């Protein structure tokens, strides 16, 4: 049987080291299979988080050969097995043990985002009417499984540690889903610019690159939001144009 070496980070917040484990490799195996095998045989105390093994729960996030990946969706056949495969915890959040980090910062951030505020119902039975084309954009963002790989790779959090000033790509798509929602009436642009720090994103697209749901985070969410912020804060001609139209509209009615 073919074998491969896995160089796995072992340790906790106080410190740790990489340790090598050799394991058999069979067809169709993913990194999570190898981790489970190592856990069952050589390292019973190896901590890792997983749930669905189908790329849908977003629990098994780690860094495989230096890139943020879902362990359950990373096939061994796509990795060079002649060298040790490194498996580390994600870097942007505090380490708890081995491959497990505390991602609760994300949940705290989410709570701060203004909630969905729909317009009054369209029909007497309290329901609304929407067209498919109105909701297409939002549906892409709803595919997010909250694996936080995009948060991990984003250099604003990972390297520059702007946890207090920047909400990260995952929550920028969350805001985009609310802002572009055809029923929503809330305005989130001020926070987006001030406290949520959209200006920190320098559109280098690493988030898009690692998203296991292939959400076009930068092109379809962040840049459109940046453009909406430009409308409100950096476009004097557009502002004048809107004012004039509003005036004309009110004069005519």
């Amino acid at each position, binding site marked *: 049987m073919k074998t491969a070496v896995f160089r796995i980070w072992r340790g906790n917040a106080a410190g740790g080291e990489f340790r090598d484990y050799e394991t058999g490799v069979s067809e169709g195996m993913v990194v999570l299979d190898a981790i489970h095998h190592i856990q069952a045989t050589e390292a019973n105390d190896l901590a890792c988080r997983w749930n669905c093994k189908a790329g849908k729960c977003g629990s098994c996030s780690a860094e495989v050969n230096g890139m943020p990946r879902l362990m359950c969706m990373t096939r061994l056949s796509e990795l060079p097995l002649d060298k040790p495969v490194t498996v580390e915890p994600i870097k942007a959040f505090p380490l708890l043990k081995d491959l497990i980090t505390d991602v609760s910062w994300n949940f705290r951030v989410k709570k701060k985002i203004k909630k969905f505020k729909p317009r009054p119902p369209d029909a007497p039975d309290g329901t609304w009417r929407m067209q498919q084309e109105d909701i297409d954009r939002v549906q892409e963002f709803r595919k997010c499984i909250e694996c936080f790989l995009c948060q991990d790779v984003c250099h604003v959090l990972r*390297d520059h540690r702007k946890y207090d000033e920047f909400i990260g790509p995952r929550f920028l798509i969350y805001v985009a889903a609310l802002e572009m929602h055809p029923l929503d009436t809330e305005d989130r642009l001020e926070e987006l610019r001030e406290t949520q720090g959209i200006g920190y994103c320098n559109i280098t697209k690493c988030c898009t690159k690692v998203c296991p749901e292939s959400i076009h985070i930068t092109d379809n969410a962040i840049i459109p939001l940046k*453009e909406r912020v430009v409308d409100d804060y950096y476009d004097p001609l557009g502002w004048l144009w809107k004012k004039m139209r509003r005036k004309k509209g009110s004069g005519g009615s």
Partner: protein
Amino acid sequence: MSAESTLSRRSFGQTMRADVWWAQPLVVFLGLGAFVVYSTWAALQGRNYYFGPYLSPFYSPEIFGPSPHSWFGAKPVWWPAWLIFSPSLLVLWAPGGFRLTCYYYRGAYYKAFWADPPACTVGEPRSTYLGERSFPLIMQNMHRYFLYLALLFILVLAHDVWKALWFVDPATGRTSFGMGVGTLVLAVNVVLLGGYTFGCHSLRHLIGGFLDQFSKSPACYRGYACVSCLNRRHMLWAWMSLFWVAFSDVYVRLCALGAWHDLRFF
């Protein structure tokens, strides 16, 4: 609301990536660097930028200048003597600014020229970071104004292609309809620049992306769909048009220098 990561910050270039992560930023660095060097050189030449009905796109529109393509005649008398003059310098800042503030190029040159980050998950050289929140990069928000100018340039360059279909016979002085390789070169240039400009993120927003309910504005929605279609390959259009606009200048320049014979189809 801090979430201090326990792992120490990586130093410049440090990464666990095993692939050749530096290849892409290097290619971008060389590609953009070569373009900036060549276009600056070409813009400062101030000659050999037209050949018969062909005008180099770096020099179009020629507002003032010595060639027959000039709109308002030769170099104006009020032009300060100490200031270098080239018809290109009067116009090139606009498409240059458009590319400089383009969302795709921004992401690309922040990585390739400023290592911010050098590549995904690779350590950065600086620990301070301002992003596009404050001066100078906050100026990138002007992109849509450069877009308005770039749309005008597309019209001008399309008109240049029309003009490149009319050749003057040096013997008789008569103008006749014709087509040469240069005409095609300039036509391809407009198509590629069009694909790039009409796929702009700002245009995508302005034409319809700002709406929350597309179904109420079907015309805007159609426009949005068209721009989105080009936008999906914005990077490809950006590189193809960048290469071709420089090539168009090279082509016209070689013809003007007599180093290349422009083939006439008819």
